[in-house]
């Protein structure tokens, strides 16, 4: 890559990415297209998935879609601002949305246990459903071991889609450590609840408990004996009762998991991988891109949150630190020669990163800058040796150190991004500039929406 391209990228960071090798993701056509029925936001934890999903919902609604946002674990204040902090597992209409374009926004927060209960209630006769809901094994199964949340998120997505009341569903995915869990968990849960082992467990209960054991082969009875020994007879009985009660629903679990899976592959579905410009988050994003391709699930692009920019990319970190050092010395000893700042020796500002790895672009800029000043010597010398008051010198040195820190962040983010782009140059990217604080109101979500679409 030429240094010019690099610089173009730097200057573009806080506005629209101008790099022509990476396709730019434009979310508005995606949101506006009536064929888009489901948008799934996925990515590792802590990258702003929920906020992105909510912002997309707000933007879609204000552009005329009847949208619903399914969030998994929103920050309390964000949930409050959308009026979905009460857990009732049904979508609520969000107030304060500009419905002028004919759209509206509904939102809900997933209640995992409640969703599981509903599945049971919808698929079993009332007395059997009650037996299941009261079973201690079911109660801890539904209250959340790894996998239930993922399964129930997909179940709820299937339900919302089946109701066909909304023309766009935006889904947040559970805060799994690995973004992939949410694709795997439903299948896993479906196949287990449906599987061979469950049937073995169920056998004694079905044929009338202990008395039926003699019909089973020796290996099997040894196994249930082992399980009984291991789990304690009472837990095994709980499991068996649960499994027996669930019997009628097993086929259903498998079918539902398969249906949800197909729904995710359907043409109306678009996946957005959300990441922050950090190594781990982008590594997860890369895995996810590969996995989606393998599963033939449609990827719309990458949302890169919390990208930093600078209004003065022409000033490299190294040069800013040198200038700060220079001013700092003036402040203390009132040194006359302002241009003799010891280059690269200012480590005070950032003890963790004593030396900036000045990148091609920054170096070039420096040379260019110096050259252009060389043609106007009066500029440098007449003003360069002027007196600077101590407090102004200190203030300016601080500003320069701050800038150096920012340029280091930019460089680091660019390196992590480059790594991702090298792996997946085909993935369209939209960058969202870092905000100083968290978003917890509709205005903030609208702002994120603007940033997402670069308007």
């Amino acid at each position, binding site marked *: 890559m030429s240094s010019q391209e690099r610089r173009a990228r730097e200057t573009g960071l806080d506005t629209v990415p101008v790099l022509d090798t990476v396709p730019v993701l434009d979310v508005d056509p995606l949101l506006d297209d009536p064929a888009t029925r489901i948008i799934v936001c996925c990515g590792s*934890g*802590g*990258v702003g998935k929920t906020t992105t999903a909510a912002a997309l919902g707000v933007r879609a609604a204000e552009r005329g879609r009847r949208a619903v946002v399914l969030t998994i*674990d929103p*920050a309390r204040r964000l949930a409050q601002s959308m009026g979905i902090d009460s857990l009732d597992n049904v979508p609520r209409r969000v107030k304060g949305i500009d419905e002028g374009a004919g759209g509206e926004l509904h939102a809900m927060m997933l209640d995992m246990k409640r969703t599981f209960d509903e599945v049971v209630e919808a698929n079993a006769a009332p007395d059997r459903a009650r037996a299941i809901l009261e079973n*201690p094994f079911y109660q*801890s*199964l539904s209250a959340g*071991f790894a996998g239930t949340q993922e399964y129930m998120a997909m179940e709820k997505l299937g339900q919302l889609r089946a109701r066909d009341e909304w023309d766009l569903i935006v889904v947040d995915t559970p805060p799994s450590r690995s973004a992939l869990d949410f694709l795997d968990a439903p299948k*896993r849960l479906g196949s*287990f609840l449906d*599987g061979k082992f469950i049937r*073995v467990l169920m056998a004694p209960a079905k044929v009338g408990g202990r008395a039926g054991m003699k019909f089973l082969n020796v*290996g099997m009875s*040894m*196994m249930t004996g*082992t*399980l009984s*020994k*291991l*789990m*304690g*007879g*009472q*837990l095994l009985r709980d499991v068996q009762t649960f499994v027996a009660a669930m019997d009628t629903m097993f086929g259903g679990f498998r079918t539902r998991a398969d249906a949800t899976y197909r729904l995710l592959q359907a043409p109306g579905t678009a996946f957005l991988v959300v990441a*922050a410009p*950090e190594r781990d988050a982008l590594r997860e994003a890369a895995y996810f891109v590969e996995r989606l391709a393998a599963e033939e699930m449609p990827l719309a692009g990458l949302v890169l949150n919390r990208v930093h920019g600078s*209004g003065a990319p022409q*000033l490299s970190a190294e040069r800013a630190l040198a*200038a*700060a050092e*220079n001013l700092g010395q*003036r402040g203390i000893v009132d040194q006359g020669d*302002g241009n003799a*700042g010891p280059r690269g020796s200012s480590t005070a*500002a950032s003890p*963790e990163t004593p030396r900036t790895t000045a990148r091609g672009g920054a170096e070039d800029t420096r040379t260019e800058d110096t050259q*252009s*000043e060389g043609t106007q010597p009066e*500029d*440098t010398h007449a*003003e360069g040796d*002027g007196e*600077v*008051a101590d407090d*102004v*010198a*200190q203030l*300016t040195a*601080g*500003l*320069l150190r*701050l*800038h150096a*820190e920012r340029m*280091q*962040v930019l460089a*680091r983010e660019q390196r992590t991004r480059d790594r991702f782009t090298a792996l997946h140059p085909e993935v369209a990217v939209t960058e969202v500039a870092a905000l*100083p*604080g968290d978003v917890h109101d509709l205005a903030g979500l609208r702002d994120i929406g603007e940033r997402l679409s670069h308007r």
Partner: protein
Amino acid sequence: MSRLQVVSGKGGTGKTTVAAALALALATEGKRTLLVEVEGRQGIAQLFETEALPYEERKIAVASGGGEVYALAIDAERALLDYLQMFYKLGSAGRALKKLGAIDFATTIAPGLRDVLLTGKACEAVRRRDKKGAYVYDYVVMDAPPTGRITKFLNVNDEVAGLAKFGPIHNQAQAVMRVLKSPETAVHFVTLLEEMPVQETADGVAELRAAELPVGKVLVNMVRPQLLDEEALRAAAGERRTAVAQALSAAGLGGARRGGHAERLVDPLLEQAAEHAQRVELEREQREALAGIGLDTYELPMLGEGLDLAGLYRLAAALRTHLGADRAQGAA
């Protein structure tokens, strides 16, 4: 200093990194620590730039002063088979269980059993002694599940002990719980000075306390230096443009006249200062919120160049300073 150090934290706060740095910090002066991974993500291997860890305790780093860090990625299925072997000498029955999918069932689906195995294995490492009766590991550091799941994860043995009211699983669960609820264990939370991680930390601490699990410290990660003091920030926001332009020029950054190189830097620099001021203010609020939790807080610096092995050792050094200060205070 508790011998089982559990490190939790919201996603994106650098939990694995801090856990690894803590293992390094505790290994100094000839100590031996075990760094345990329970989520099967191979985050430790990536951090130490080694190949994927097998289900086996393996030395991955040497700390200053001759200490050693071992690492183990616990695999629930293997842990269950080990456990069956250890307690029941189940040769063929174990294999039969595996063939039927029972092991898969137990480790993925049976409520909490997976977590029982993971915590059980960590507790076993804490209690393990060599032939002379000395502890094999001075400390065990666990890279634990995130804040939202940590109480459930650690308390799962209680839950299982309730589900299985007697029998070996019950006994095992009780034994693990005794370690987890004792002063032998400390659960730390990694956070950033941002609203959501701080809120989750407060919630997580409250949950742990309610479950009577031992809360350790709050580890504030990625703390950026405050580069301008309050006064300077106020000044920057005021009418100092010309003076700043002149100072920039004096430092050799071009002309201070209108449109000159130095003058054109003023706006962007002041804008960055305003953002910085806003961030400093938000961080101050979050520090206050953290103080309200009432736990000791360690701050760890942001590594400007991103995290590599060298960065990990720098974090370990920062943790060591905190630990040393605590120890000195304890002695006084």
